[in-house]
């Protein structure tokens, strides 16, 4: 099997597996919606306040939703031994891990793109910011999956890696959160957001190239 067909075979396999267990796909989305819903209940339903907080609320909730879904990235493969098969295969693990990350993003990041603008409207985000919100989500949710893959491959061998992964991954998510929510906020005020978008593009390409390397190294360590 050539590298390219192995790459697409992994994406296909992961997508099929995900669609056979639809409830698991839906969970991060429901989580995202519920967290966003909690904010108006927690801080009060003042429309001005919610409008000001909308970019932050959407982005923090998206961050948490992706983080909670990370465990599914390698867990089942680790349990049933297919991760070992990937390690033993003649193809570079980095590329295979990259395929798994893409599949993970299609299952968790992509649905967020659909739901987030809707929730942003409910929170009163100005319509002119919706395009920027979508753009930041398109650019930055893959980054969340990419960076998260490092954390999850470090902890996949642990029985209770769930709490540790938040400590490992969230500090690395912070630059994404800063620039993405700042871009949405600026766009809401009618200001230019080129700088933030350019930085997000840079972060996207950097992490797409670099993140699979430590993730693959960490998987080798975890499987041992």
């Amino acid at each position, binding site marked *: 099997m050539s590298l390219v067909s192995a790459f697409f075979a992994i994406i296909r396999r992961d997508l099929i597996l995900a669609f056979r267990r639809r409830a698991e796909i839906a969970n991060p989305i429901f989580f995202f919606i519920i967290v966003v819903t909690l904010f108006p209940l927690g801080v009060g339903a003042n429309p001005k306040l919610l409008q000001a907080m909308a970019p932050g609320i959407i982005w923090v909730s998206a961050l948490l939703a992706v983080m909670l879904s990370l465990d599914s990235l390698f867990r089942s493969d680790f349990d049933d031994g297919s991760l070992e098969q990937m390690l033993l295969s003649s193809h570079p693990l980095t590329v295979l891990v990259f395929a798994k990350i893409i599949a993970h993003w299609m299952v968790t990041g992509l649905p967020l793109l659909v739901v987030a603008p809707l929730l942003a409207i409910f929170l009163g985000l100005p319509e002119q910011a919706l395009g920027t919100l979508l753009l930041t989500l398109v650019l930055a949710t893959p980054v969340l999956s990419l960076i998260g893959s490092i954390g999850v491959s470090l902890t996949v061998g642990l029985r209770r890696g769930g709490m540790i992964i938040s400590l490992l991954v969230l*500090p*690395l998510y912070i630059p994404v959160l800063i620039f993405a929510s700042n871009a949405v906020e600026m766009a809401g005020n009618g200001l230019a957001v080129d700088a933030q978008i350019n930085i997000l593009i840079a972060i996207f390409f950097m992490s797409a190239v670099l993140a699979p390397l*430590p993730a693959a190294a*960490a998987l080798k*360590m975890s499987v041992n």
Partner: protein
Amino acid sequence: MSIIPAPIVRFYHRTASPPHFYSLANKLLPWLVGIFILLAGAGLYGGLYLAPTDYQQGDSYRIIYIHVPAAWMSLFIYVIMAVMGAISLIWRMKIADVVLISSAPIGASFTFIALVTGSLWGKPMWGTWWVWDARLTSELILLFLYLGVISLYGAIEDKRTASRAVAILALVGVVNIPIIHYSVQWWNTLHQGPTVAKMDKPSIHIDMLIPLLLMATAFKFYYAIAMLQVAKVEILKREQNMQWVKKLVETKA
């Protein structure tokens, strides 16, 4: 054929062996302690007694002699950990693992000290204990990075695997160091910009600067002392079944 002279290579290989590192640490420690006491004594005397009172901040600026060196150390130690992580991943050097994991709690403590002293300094100067400005927040994130390293190491039972895991994590986390370092320049926030390490001329009076640099050097020595102490224990733990540790215990007993 190597461009590195042979004695350096020999020193490097010998230091990489745990028993040699252990005895080297034992030999170095008294010297380091002596130099630390001299430097810290001179620095504190200069800083708390000789240095002039600040015309704006009064005497409360003197916390700088703890706050700034601690903040420098918090970044410095993380970079050391990342370098050790790289060495351990590339050359599988056991001592690099030991130094990495021994540095983590010390770095976390320095970060904590920098945060606490900064908070104490902020109350009289800014009128608030804490602001969510770029420097403070990124320093807090640095603390989380340290805690992540420590808890990941604690969570993995096989310590050899754990060492590799924290090496990878330290290397990945180092991307945040430039962000913390330049945060005061990139974002115009409440925390003041750099006053010491400026290209042209430091914007701090020379009588205040000298004790500060003395304290910064003293903190480096303190780090070396603390790290070697922790590393010695860590080496003994890891090598407890080795012949040289048994011999060491027998001679001590």
